[in-house]
């Protein structure tokens, strides 16, 4: 699907350094996959979205200004894809046991691993508006300004969402709010998924 999209792409005016653009695309794959996973939780769907983002970015390469924030530009395309799909097809999130298992073995010790799994589970319960900025700022190290530019809102809004997201995560991971009682988030299902 993705490849055919690339093949269908009509050549655009060669006003960009395509080799450099491709290298930037390759370099950002890990972060793109990570951000996509934090938005949709479903591994396959997240990878599909990340690839679709790469295809769209390639098709729109002429509109990218070299020397500007490539990561913010890519994240903006990705979240646009996500929200488009999100509006079309949403469902209640389910906890991915594979993710839980993976994060459980990544911690340096058992206590840290349990905390990490708790944070991962709590993260899924956050509203997506808080989750995305929290991941951009806290996990990907973006500035508030870049995050605001990426999602198209005021810096103050980003700061507020990050603060609220952090506070909610803290409450959930400290047991003030039972994760099972927290409102499930809405996320999207990949085509053909059973629920």
């Amino acid at each position: 699907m993705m490849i055919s999209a690339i093949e269908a792409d009509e050549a655009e005016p060669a006003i960009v350094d395509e080799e450099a653009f491709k290298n930037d695309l390759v370099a950002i794959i890990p972060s793109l996959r990570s951000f996509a996973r934090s938005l949709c939780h479903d591994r396959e769907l997240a990878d599909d979205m990340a690839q679709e983002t790469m295809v769209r970015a390639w098709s729109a390469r002429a509109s990218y200004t070299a020397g500007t924030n490539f990561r913010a530009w890519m994240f903006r395309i990705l979240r646009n894809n996500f929200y488009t799909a999100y509006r079309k097809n949403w469902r209640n999130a389910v906890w991915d046991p594979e993710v839980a298992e993976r994060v459980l073995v990544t911690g340096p010790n058992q206590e840290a691993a349990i905390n990490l799994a708790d944070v991962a589970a709590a993260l899924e319960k956050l509203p997506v508006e808080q989750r995305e900025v929290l991941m951009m700022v806290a996990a990907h190290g973006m500035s508030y300004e870049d995050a605001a530019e990426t999602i198209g809102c005021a810096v103050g809004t980003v700061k507020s969402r990050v603060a609220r997201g952090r506070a909610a995560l803290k409450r959930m991971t400290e047991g003030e709010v039972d994760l099972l009682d927290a409102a499930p988030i809405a996320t999207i299902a990949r085509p053909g998924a059973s629920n």
Partner: protein
Amino acid sequence: MDIGHHQSALSVKPVLGEDTHLSKKLNEPTGGRKTITTPSRGRDPIGDALRQLHDSVASEPIPPSFLDLVAEIEKKIEQSR
């Protein structure tokens, strides 16, 4: 399709959090002077956990489907030369 070639091209992983143009502003040429605000660092268990979650995904091997996509892009670049 020569996937092996592309795997070698992808074998140098970017350092996490150091994507290209990381320090540059969106749609702002290099050298622009805008205030950049980052969260204060310090003891931050939530932030640490979120970074570990990010790292756990970002350090995964890149799936073959991504390599195929990159190969197609490289083919397009070749064709346009």
